[in-house]
């Protein structure tokens, strides 16, 4: 397989692996944890480097994952104390940890080319050249295997704990009431997020991971109404975004990670505009179509109201209708024309009166909304 296609495979696997926990992050309103982890792992890396004095020892990765979990634990402790809101808890923990990392570097290793970008952060473009060979057999890029394993674990965990995760996300107090352990589920989810993030940092770089954990699930949130389909859409959008970004990067010879992040954002924008019910265009289309439809119904209800009342002559006179309904004359004519076209009203001399069908529609114009 050519390196380009290997990169595509890694990008898609990573995108899907990130979108799974990402969906719960978005629903639980803790999406910024993914960005916090990308900053907060620095001290873990530096300490591991001081111990091993080897820039590419796997221990650095293990330490980074551990620091990621520590970050989540600290954030969670702050939130549970109920003294500080969620976003502030995140905004307190990660700068502190990152600063410890910078101080350690400046004091101990300022002459070593050691920071999150240089040491830990992988680059999607290099992934095909870092291969896994077992007993002489080249099994393909290491990143594909590592992210594939993380994807598998994430998928299995989510399937196993489907009910618990769903309940803990929707209503933690009810979960407690019904005997589920929201705390255990929550920390399990956060560990999954931390491991996925650190694993993906090494494969594709930190900023792409944040994009992949938030953009596809947010897009899915616009397309789906229930959790099951939402995860389905998140995975599909993640894969589509990865492939689209990859293709653009090859065509324009630009950063692959950057292009995929941008593509994920574009897919969200498309969904934001074009989603069937929730999209902007749908809302706008509905509103404009609605206005005429409402106007026809309002006309009918108004006519129904005053049909057999003494002021019928005044209220139902076509010429005077616009004044009573508070509409512009042109708009009133258009509404009456539309109603006539749909045989809901009939002209009787100067008056406009609802037909049988019009009267029927006006009656259940309101109560009949359940259809």
């Amino acid at each position, binding site marked *: 397989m050519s390196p380009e296609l290997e990169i595509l495979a890694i990008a898609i696997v990573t995108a899907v692996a990130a979108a799974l926990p990402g969906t719960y992050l978005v629903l639980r309103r803790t999406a910024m944890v993914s960005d916090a982890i990308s900053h907060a792992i620095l001290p873990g890396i530096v300490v591991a480097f001081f111990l091993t004095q080897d820039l590419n020892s796997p221990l650095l990765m293990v330490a980074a994952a551990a620091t990621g979990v520590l970050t989540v634990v600290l954030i969670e402790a702050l939130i549970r104390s109920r003294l500080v809101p969620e976003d502030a808890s995140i905004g307190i923990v990660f700068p502190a940890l990152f600063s410890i990392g910078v101080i350690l570097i400046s004091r101990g290793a300022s002459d070593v080319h050691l920071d999150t970008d240089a040491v830990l952060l992988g680059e999607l473009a290099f992934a095909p050249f870092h291969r896994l060979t077992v007993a002489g057999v080249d099994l393909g890029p290491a990143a594909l295997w590592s992210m594939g394993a993380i994807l598998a674990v994430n998928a299995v965990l989510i399937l196993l704990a489907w009910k618990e995760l769903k309940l803990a996300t929707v209503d933690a107090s009810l979960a407690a009431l019904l005997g589920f352990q929201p705390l255990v589920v929550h920390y399990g989810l956060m560990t999954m997020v931390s491991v996925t993030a650190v694993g993906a940092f090494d494969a594709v770089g930190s900023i792409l991971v944040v994009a992949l954990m938030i953009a596809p699930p947010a897009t899915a949130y616009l397309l789906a109404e229930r959790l099951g389909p939402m995860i389905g859409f998140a995975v599909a959008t993640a894969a589509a975004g990865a492939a689209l970004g990859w293709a653009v990067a090859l065509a324009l010879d630009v950063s692959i990670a950057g292009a995929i992040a941008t593509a994920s954002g574009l897919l969200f924008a498309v969904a934001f505009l074009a989603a069937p019910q929730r999209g902007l265009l749908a809302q706008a289309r509905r*509103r404009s179509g*609605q206005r005429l439809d409402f106007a026809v119904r*309002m006309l009918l209800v108004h006519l129904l109201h005053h049909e057999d009342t003494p002021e019928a002559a005044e209220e139902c006179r076509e010429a005077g209708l616009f004044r009573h*309904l*508070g509409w512009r004359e042109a708009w009133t004519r258009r509404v009456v024309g539309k109603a006539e076209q749909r045989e809901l009203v009939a002209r009787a001399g100067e008056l406009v009166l609802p037909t049988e069908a019009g009267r029927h529609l006006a009656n259940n*114009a*309101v*109560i009949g*909304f359940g259809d």
Partner: protein
Amino acid sequence: MIDDRSAALEVEDLTVAYSDQPVLWDIDLVVPAGDKMAIVGPNGAGKSTLIKAAMGLVPSVAGEVRVFGRPFAKGNGEIAYVPQRSSLEWDFPTDVLDVVTMGTYGSLGWFSRPGAAERDRARAALEEVTMEAFERRPIAQLSGGQQQRVLLARALVQEAPILMLDEPFQGVDAPTEQAIAAVLDRLSDEGKTVIVVHHDLQTVPEYFDSVLLLNVRAIESGPVADVFTEDNLRLTFGGRVGVLAQLAAGEIDS
């Protein structure tokens, strides 16, 4: 359309729609000055939306709102609004007097600060809801009933001719319920108009002069005596006849 000079609030053809289902549909409503009106209806009837749309806090597809005959415009102190207690973040760092003083911001210019006069007006309002002792109390330490009284006091300070309250009796202790009812009576006696979104049908006859039965559309409105009837309630609350029968007989609440 009766063009009654004395009508405090006139709403005509008010229609509000969010998604494809209209939330409020061609509402016509006339509230005479000094009237105490309850807005009742099932969940999703659009009760809150109606007062918010009338005040222009929520966009409406169509409709006109007139106050004392003149088209209503926000900001000239004609309508005072009491939001739902649960819609606020009560952990906000401020005290009771400060919240009530917010009611005077309407009459202050952009850069001016509330002075002693405004604070005295706020204290007077607090006395009306018997909360003057809690002036310095941080709002995070208030019980549900106390929070509701503070919001009411904030509206009183505005001295607006019309007050709109969203579920003021929801989940408050008994003394608070009595206190609020008393304040509404006094306002009505002073010729002020009070419009309240209410959920407890049981207490409608006791606290209100007139009632609007609302379910997306204005089913019926008028004095409680001739509007608050069993078949109107059935029309408003739909099929739950059983509950309605007991309801009309006043045994259990909604």
